[in-house]
Structures are given as C-alpha cells and as structure tokens.
C-alpha cells in the first residue's frame, strides 16, 4: 500500500499551478481597466521572481559540486540573469509605484 501514501511531488506542483491560474483569472478580471498599464508593469516585476533561479546558480559551491569548468559557466550565466532580473524588479516595482502615485481623486 506504500504507493498510495506516496504521491509524486510533481502532482502537488501541478495542483498549485492549476489553482494559481484560477486565482489569477478571477483576480485579474477584478482589476479596473484604468489600471491595466500598472497591471502589466507589476506582473512584469513579479515574474522576475525568476531571480531565485539566478541566485541559486551564482551561489553554487564549486568545491562541493566539483565539475570545474561547467560550474563556472553556470555561475557566469546566473550572474547575467541576476543583473537582468534585478533591472526588472527594481524598474518594474518603482515605475508601477510612480504610475500609481499619479492616480488622484477629484479635489472637492
């Protein structure tokens, strides 16, 4: 019966993925059309959470993993990805903040 107790972790991830698509669907439909541009810039910023992959590549320990040359390649690739993702994160969130700061109500 051991097979029943052990569900492939991939199934959990795909469950999260599918549920998140539904959450995204309902949340995005409730976004007011006036804020569609900030929506795009903020989704841009959050999709740069791909920075976690870049950090893991940069942080890889050459001695522990071994492999020599290919590890340095990973570190270098990770470093470039880290810079690009940082541009996006800082740029994306700040430009969104700047835009949102412009939306003002009528002064009564």
């Amino acid at each position: 019966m051991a097979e029943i107790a052990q569900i492939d972790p991939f199934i959990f991830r795909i469950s999260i993925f599918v549920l998140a698509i539904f959450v995204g669907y309902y949340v995005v439909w409730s976004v007011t059309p006036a804020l569609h541009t900030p929506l795009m810039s903020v989704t841009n910023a959050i999709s740069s959470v791909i920075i976690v992959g870049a950090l893991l590549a940069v942080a890889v320990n050459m001695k522990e993993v071994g492999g020599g040359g290919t590890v340095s390649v990973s570190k270098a690739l990770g470093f470039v990805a880290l810079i690009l993702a940082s541009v996006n994160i800082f740029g994306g969130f700040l430009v969104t903040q700047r835009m949102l700061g412009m939306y003002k109500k009528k002064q009564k």
Partner: protein
Amino acid sequence: MTQNIAAIAYLIAGVLFILALRGLSSPETSRRGNLAGMAGMVLAVLTTLYVADVRFSDGLTWGLIGAGIAIGGIMGVVIARRIPMTAMPQLVAAFHSLVGVAAVLVAAAALYTPEAYGIGTQEQIKLSSLIEMSLGVAIGAITFSGSVVAFAKLQGLVSGAPVAFRGQHPLNALLGLVTIGFIVWFCTSQAHTAFWSLTALTIALGVLIIIPIGGADMPVVISMLNSYSGWAAAGIGFTLENTALIITGALVGSSGAILSYIMCKGMNRSFFNVILGGFGGKSEVSGAQVEQRPVKQGNAEDAAFILKNAGSVIVVPGYGMAVAQAQHALREMADMLKKKGVKISYAVHPVAGRMPGHMNVLLAEANIPYDEVFELEEINNQFAQTDVAFVIGANDVTNPAAKNDPSSPIYGMQVLDVEKAHTVLFVKRSLAPGYAGIDNELFYRDNTMMLFGDGKKMVEGIVKLL
C-alpha cells in the same frame, strides 16, 4: 527542515504577489498592493539566500550577488525614474524581453550544474526536469526575441507596418514542428548542442511571430508577450521546484491572456486574426475611391467659442494625443472650462493607445482625476445628452462605419458614439484615414467641425482664447 521552512516562505511570497494584483481593483488600494508585491520579492530573495547556504567566507559568491543586484538595481531605478509615461509600452516590452532572457539563462545554468537545483547530476538530469526546462527555454526565447521586435516597432527603430512575405504561415508552422523535434532531441540526449539549437531556433521563431503584426495591434502583442513571460517563468518554476515561481508564472500567464482577450474584443477581432497579422498594413482604399466631400473646418477661435458656451464636454483621447504630448495642455483647457461651469468628462476606448490602459496613465500623469475618466460602457449612452465631444488623436474608435457599414473592416467593433453629441470637435492633422486605412464618415457630418493641426498646438491655442 530547512526545505520545509523555505517552501512555506515561498508560498507566502506567492500569496503576497496575489495581493499585489488584487490591490489593483481600485486606485486607492493599488499602492498598498504594490508594497505587498515588493515584500513578496524581498522574502523570495532572502529565502533563496537562506536555502543556498552560502558560506560567509565565500567572498566571490557574495561579491557576485551584491554586484549583480547593485548593477541591475541601479539601472532599474534610473530607468523607472526617467522613463516618460508616453514610452510605457516600449518599456514594458523591453522588460518582457529581460524576463525571457533570464528564463533562458537560468535554464542553461541548470543544464550546466543540475546539482545546484537538486535535479540530478551532469548528463543525468531527470526526464521531467528536462521537459520543463525545454518548455521554459522555448517560451523564454520566444518572449525575448518577440519583445525585442515589439520594442523596436514601438520605439520607431523599425517600421510599425506589418512585414508579410509568401509562405510565412507555413514557414512558422514548420519551425513550430522543428521546435518540438528539438525538444525531443534535447530531452533524450541532454546534449548542450541540442539545448542551444533549441534556443537559437525559438529566438528566430519569436521574431517571425511578431513581425507580421502591425503597429496598432501592439496592445494585443504586448499583452500576449506578458502572458508568455509568465508561462516561461512557470516552466522554470517547475524545473526549480519552486512554488513562488510557479504561482507567479500562473498569475502572470493568465493576466496576460485576459488582457489579450480584452484587447481583441475591443477591436472585435479574433485572437488568431491578430496573430496571423497583416492587418492595417497598406491602405486598401485607393486614391480614386476617396471622394472629395466638403468638411466643415474651424480654427482655435471657433473651438474656444463653442467650448465656452457648452454645458457639458466629453473628451475622447487617442494615441495621437500621446504622440503630440497634448495631455497637459488638455488638462489646462479642462480646468479653464470647469471654472466657467462646463462639466468635463473623458471617454477611453479599450484599445486607445498602444497598450492596455495607456490613456488612463497619460491622463493621470496630467493630473486629471481618475473619477472623471470613464470606460466605453460607462459613458457611451451619455454622448446624446452632451453638447460637445472633443476628439483628440483618436479616429477608428469613433468611426460610425463600425455600426452601420457591414462592408467596413471594422464593422462590429464597439465604438464611442461621439456623433450623437450636439457638436463634434475633431482635432486631427489631416483628413488621412486612421490606422485601419478606412475613411471616417464622421468628418463629413453636419455637426462635426474639423480642427486641423498639431494636437498640442491646437489645444494651447484654445486655452489662450478661453
């Protein structure tokens, strides 16, 4: 234990990202939402550093991390501060391309050092990880090159006109099949050559997908690339087995898909029709067909007189307003009219501008209160009770042909009923047709007065006379 704490932290980061989007349901909550997003990002980064367990003595690694974030961060801050609001579509396209490249680079790093991500060892990577990785790379590369083309078109580096050639669609379909072949090749061989061939091919594919799409279809293109960048992130999230990345990818993917849908609906065209491209390239109206009908022409003085004596005015802005940078002058005009007791509101068509919500940002930048700005459905029935419709830089979205001429290419598209207003003031450079290449019969109506000239100069001229 470390892994469990990290998994929960990533989940919390994912929830914070959901709250960031949720905040955008109204301008009041949006700023708080954005802060939630930033908090989520900080949490994700700190968690990753905790998991990566870098030794304090490892100066090289800490140096690289610090330098990478600092270089990228400074560039990001400078860009965010300096970018003019009219250039937002280009900026978003450029940012999408960065997400695409980052996805490709992270996948490559995972291929070269799978140990770092716990997905196997060199040449011994799990099959499931390989499949996820290749999907992430393919979508990431398409996002990258597609966004670069979109950026170049929006920035005016290349012509915005659609590029079409014979056999375009069969070629794309063929390349699509070859891509699948390369994915199989990579998953079975784990060869670096296969990985880079796949990357190169999908970069080419990204270019070919976007070049046939014309300038004014850019709202759809940007939304679509937004969606792609999300799916690429999700693909990498599966490879990295990272919940925050999977949740975010799904959110961004569905967000972009919904925006694409809204934009297509705004133009009354199917998604495939837009993707296949070629729309609005060359004007199909030949010179002979354009009849020389009389138009009523006015100047700033006439316009100022009409506006002063109106009780209510609806302003209809379009992309031309952004090009002419007329939004600030427009606000001044509105302020002066308001002082004279004229009621002012703004009507924004969903596809006005070059990206979703573009007009709203430009109006907000000019300090126009957002509760004076209305969407098409909210305001369309009010034109009939309005004295003046002031159209500036918009054209096709006001064309009555969409309602009464079944032969028109834009027939069926929802348009703003500006012709129902008592008087229509139409600021335009010339009588040239709009992007869709169709004549606008609105120009020739009795209640329309054409104000020929640059949008900004015309509005400034009116302001002086008020």
